[in-house]
Structures are given as C-alpha cells and as structure tokens.
C-alpha cells in the first residue's frame, strides 16, 4: 500500500469528492493551462483557491508535506538554474555573482506555478475515485475515432495507480541502498542499475497480480459506457473556475484594463 498522498485516491464525502469527475477533469485542464500564463496576482489568487480546496477535501497535511520533500529537490534545482543563469544584467550584488533580480523573479514565478500544478494534481487524484476517472476519460475519448477509449482509460487509471506505488518502492530502494553505502558509488551506471533492478522486479510482480485480478473479474473493453449527463450544479463550479482562470491570465486582464482590444 502506498504511504504517500501524491497521485493517490483517498475516500471521503467532501464536496470535492462528490464533484463530477468529468467537470473536475475540465477544471484541472483549465487550471494547468492557465497557471503557466499567470503572474503574481493570479498565482496569489489560485494559492488561496488551493488552500480552500485542501481545507474542503480534508487532505492530511503532514503526509502531504512529507511528499513535498521529493518535489523540493526538483524545485530547488529549477530555482537555482533559473535564478543564476539568466542573461539580464540587473545584478543583486556584484557582476561576479550571476544572480539577477529578473532571474530571481522568473525563478520564483516558475517554481510557484509548478508547485501549484503539483498541488492541484494531488488534490485531483486525492478526491477522484479511479473508476470515476476511468469513466471520465472513456467519456472524453469516445467521440475520437480509431481510439479504443475504454482500454486507453484503463491504461491511464492503471498508470496513475502505479505511480505512488513505484515512488514508494523507489524510496524503499533508495533507503536500502543508503544503508548499504550504495549511495557512495561513484559509477553512475552501477547507481542506475542498483536503483532500477529492484524497483523493476517489485513493480513487475505487482503488475502480474493486477493483470490476474483483471482477468479473474472478466474484464472486457467492448461494453458500452453508461454515464448520466453532467448535472448542471456540477457544471457551475467548473465554468466559474474556468472564468476565474481566464480573468487571471495577463491577456484578459490587459484587455479589461484597456491596453489591448477585447477581440485580441
């Protein structure tokens, strides 16, 4: 069983849990597209939205913060790369230290956006039942010809199921390597092999169990999808969120402020 919160469903009865998965899906898509266009005011607003989402869904904060450690390394690396190697000349101290105000601003924006995307994705997987997610993807893909929507949806759900499990296994292997001084190895090839082989063996065993369980339950992907139409009250928050995203992106705010024509 996975110990982490990221990409993992947790049963609950919060309004976010009850929100139709299809609507949640579109809200998530709007958010991920919009967040990468937003500046500081928009990001502040959506940080508040995210805090509200966390509170409403009753997401346990302690395991979530533990998960954040994995992302912290990644975000620190991205922050340093962006802040230190920006070509601008407005240096914070002296020209010998390659840290510029523009670089700092850009790095802060990038990391803030990434952290928000990660938080919203966590919130999405935390509150969406895998079965609902599978149905939502099937519903989304069924109009596209030549794509086996149900099979693709199953694969996406399985992939999301495997993600936290593999991450847990990677943590276990990393700790086991560390305790055996494996982290001190200088040869990167041995490092990769030492990490990948045990993760792989464990994951493969898990995959076999899953395939057998699907087969035992008589899985078929030619069954028609029977989903009720999207309820209006579920659609409302999606539309509201999409409008909020749209209003928080610079193009629309500039158009409203009169800097750009509205038909731009």
């Amino acid at each position, binding site marked *: 069983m996975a110990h982490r919160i990221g*990409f993992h469903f947790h049963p609950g009865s919060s309004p976010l849990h009850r929100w139709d998965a299809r609507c949640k*899906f579109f809200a*998530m*898509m709007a*958010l*991920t*597209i919009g967040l*990468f266009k937003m500046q500081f005011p928009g990001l502040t607003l959506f940080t508040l939205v995210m805090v509200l989402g966390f509170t409403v869904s009753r997401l346990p904060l302690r395991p979530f913060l533990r998960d954040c450690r*994995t*992302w912290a*390394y*990644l*975000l620190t*690396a*991205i922050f340093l790369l962006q802040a230190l190697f920006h070509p601008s000349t407005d240096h914070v101290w002296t020209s010998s230290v390659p840290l510029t105000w523009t670089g700092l601003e850009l790095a802060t924006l990038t990391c803030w956006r*990434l952290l928000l*995307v*990660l938080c919203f*994705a966590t919130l*999405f*997987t935390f509150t969406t039942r895998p079965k609902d997610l599978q149905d939502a*993807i099937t519903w989304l893909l069924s109009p596209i010809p030549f794509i086996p929507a149900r*099979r*693709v949806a*199953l*694969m*996406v759900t*399985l*992939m*999301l199921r*495997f*993600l936290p499990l*593999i*991450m847990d296994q*990677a943590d276990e292997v990393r700790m086991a390597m560390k305790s055996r001084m494996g982290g001190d190895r200088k040869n*990167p*090839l041995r*490092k*990769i*092999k030492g*990490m*990948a*082989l045990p*993760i*792989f*063996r464990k*994951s*493969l065993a*898990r*995959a*076999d169990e*899953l*395939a*057998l369980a*699907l*087969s035992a339950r008589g*899985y*078929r*992907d030619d069954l028609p999808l029977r989903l009720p139409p999207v309820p209006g009250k579920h659609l409302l928050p999606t539309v509201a969120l999409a409008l909020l995203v749209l209003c928080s992106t610079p193009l629309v705010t500039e158009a409203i402020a009169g800097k750009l024509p509205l038909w731009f």
Partner: protein
Amino acid sequence: MSTDHLQRIVYASLFSALIAVGAYIHIPMVPVPIVLQNFFVLLAGLLLGSRWAFISVCIYLLVGALGLPVFSGGRGGLGHFLGPTGGYLFGFALSAYVCGWISERTRDTVMFSVAAVTVASLTVYAIGVPWLKMVTQMDWQRAALLGMVPFLVGDVLKAAAAVVVAKALRPMFNRRLRIATPA
C-alpha cells in the same frame, strides 16, 4: 480478453508510470543532472517491443496532456506539446517504437541492443532539436548546443544502463510474457 493481452496492457501502463517517475528521479552529474525518463523509454522499447512501447509512451503523453504533472520538472498540460520541448515529447514515442522495432528484428545480443538504443536515442534529437530551433527561432548550432550537447554524456550512460538492465530483466520478462525470443 485473454490474460496475455491484459498482461501486456498492464505492463505497458507500468512502463508509462515508470517513465513518469523517471522524470522525478535526478542523479547528479556534470554538466547536467541525469533524469531517468528516457532510460525507461529505451527500456520499454527493448522489453515490450515496438507496438506496446509506443502505446506505453503515448499513454504517458496523454496523461501529461490531460494536465497531470508527469513531464520532466513536474510539468504537465497540453501547452507543453507546442512549447520548445514539445519535439522531445513526440520524439520519445518514436524513439520507443524505433528501439522496439530494431530489437524485435535482431538477435538478443548486447551489440544489437546497443545499436537499438543508439538509434532510438538519436531519434529523440532528430525530432527535438529541429522543433526547438523552429519554436525558438535559434540557428542550428545554438539549438544543438542547448538542446543536445549537454545531455549527450547522460544519454550515453542511460543507453548503456538500459542495455545492462534489459539484459538482466529479459529472461524474467520473456518467461512472464511467454514471448519466443528471436533465435
């Protein structure tokens, strides 16, 4: 649906997840840190074969396109396909197919595996670098310097590791999938 077919579906999904996890695993290296993403793409090609490796990468790309942060650096969203690194994403799918295609048609030896991962690794750049050049309006030299040269050392190591790990895993993999390996 037969158990064999379901097993392939589950394995392909597993590889999609591994590719996504690979985007989060950083191994510190000079000049740039190694991300294990394309290591798993190559491994998918070597172990799953062309068709399922291609499907596996497509599922990974679909999940990323839907907005989940599975791309390198915790990114996600449809916009990334049109950005400067979009070519590398499409390149991954073709790379997995090419790697699988070569390994399916050749004998199971280290030499042929090396050939498969080399051609597959170059396939990523064959799409990624022109895409980078086109989107950023850079000249060829600068595009190659930014989008290929810093990653070559890491790529050689990842390709070598993919061959070593695939060799270690193939007997177990084939036994499970009941694939008749080429004589």
